[in-house]
């Protein structure tokens, strides 16, 4: 097999890697933001439940969680697809970590600004959406990039549930062509390329929403 053919198959795998990464990042973002918003909106009881969720999901290996979802749930009559299984395992773990990143960033929002917004008559949700989240997200950029990178690096677990992402393609190609060194080097380069793409995307977002004298400068 010519190397261009190998590369084409690896690029096809890269598409799946991107799909898994983006799906899990979106799941993580929605979960993380949801946890932070619920914590701010409701009392200590809800906050304790959410703290338990983040505590448990940060403590279980992603692979074990993936197996519980993909191989365990069918026993209860629920058959999630491989991508959904990744979102319910890696995505939710990412959400638990992001909730912690957001919590730290939220602590850096000036409490006087929050009080000023409440005093003006804004509702709790309006304060969260207009004051707390916009500042929190700007402050959380470095932590978010770190988490997104972790998701990318855990995405090869998709291989275990049959998603033909880069690593699965590479293993299949290496076993049939015996050109492991070239193939896995190409895999490393591809992952690094995707990582750089993520960094570039985050830098663009950061630049677009940059506020002089605030946050990450």
């Amino acid at each position, binding site marked *: 097999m010519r190397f261009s053919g190998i590369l084409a198959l690896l690029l096809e795998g890269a598409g799946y890697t991107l799909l898994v990464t983006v799906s899990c990042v979106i799941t993580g973002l929605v979960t993380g933001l949801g946890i932070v918003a619920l914590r701010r909106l409701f009392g200590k009881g809800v906050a304790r439940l959410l703290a338990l969720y983040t505590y448990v999901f940060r403590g279980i290996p992603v692979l074990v969680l993936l197996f519980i979802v993909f191989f365990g749930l069918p026993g209860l009559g629920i058959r999630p697809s491989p991508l959904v299984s990744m979102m319910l395992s890696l995505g939710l773990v990412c959400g638990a970590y992001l909730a912690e990143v957001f919590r730290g960033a939220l602590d850096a929002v000036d409490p006087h600004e929050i009080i*000023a917004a*409440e005093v*003006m*008559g804004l509702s709790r949700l309006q304060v969260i959406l207009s*004051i707390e989240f916009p500042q929190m997200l*700007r402050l959380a950029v470095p932590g978010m990039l770190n988490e997104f990178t972790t998701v990318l690096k855990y995405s090869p677990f998709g291989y275990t549930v049959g998603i033909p992402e880069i690593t699965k393609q590479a293993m299949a190609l290496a076993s049939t062509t015996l050109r492991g060194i070239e193939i896995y080097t190409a895999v490393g380069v591809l992952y690094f390329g995707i990582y750089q793409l993520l960094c570039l995307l985050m830098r663009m977002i950061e630049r677009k929403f940059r506020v002089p004298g605030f946050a990450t400068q």
Partner: protein
Amino acid sequence: MALLEIKDLVKRFDGRTVLNGVTFELNEGQTKVIMGPSGCGKSTLLRCLNRLLEPDGGQIFFRGEDVALPDTDIRQHRQRIGFVFQQFALYRHLTVLENITLGLRKLRRLSTAAADKKAAYQLERMEMGAHRLKYPAHLSVGQKQRVAIARALAMDPAVLFFDEPTSALDPLMSLEVAAVINQLRSENVTMLCVTHDVSLARHVTDRVIFLDDGQVKAEDSAEQLLTTHADPRIRQFFGQPAALK
């Protein structure tokens, strides 16, 4: 007619009584300054009046309606009060203009164009029109205070509360703020100002309330209270010799 009528207001923190039966009135168009030693409950009083803190007793009548009752629409009540903070509390991620239009868009439901127009008017009134696209980090403290006042005024409040408006400013900037408050006073804006600044009190009002031990100990004209009041403790607080008659 009294815009605000406070009767026997009580506030406790962990069993410690901070406000112990505060009673006074604020009429429409009037400016009153509340002074007193640190920890006497001045800021607590302001925060109880807009229900940022829950009073433990007493009544707060706002245009005749008791707003200390549990079923009061607190958000509605707060929208009638403009609040200017000691720390300015400008939203750092928003421009000067956006700081002012936020409340107009979210609470008054104005369109962006209408909110911008109203905000621009208030900024011109505070001589801050040229700075509307700047972020708070690029403003001097005096400019921040002017923006904070413009933000409060844009909501057309029935009364403006100032919580130590000059404590973060140098004497020159304090005079600027005093001039702004005086300008508003000449426009009949109702104001209640908590301050330590004797000079500010002299400049902006003819009525000073002296708060001590959680109670109104005296309410008098600024001149009387600050210089020749009968109570030696009050004279002493304002730096006058106790023996002065």
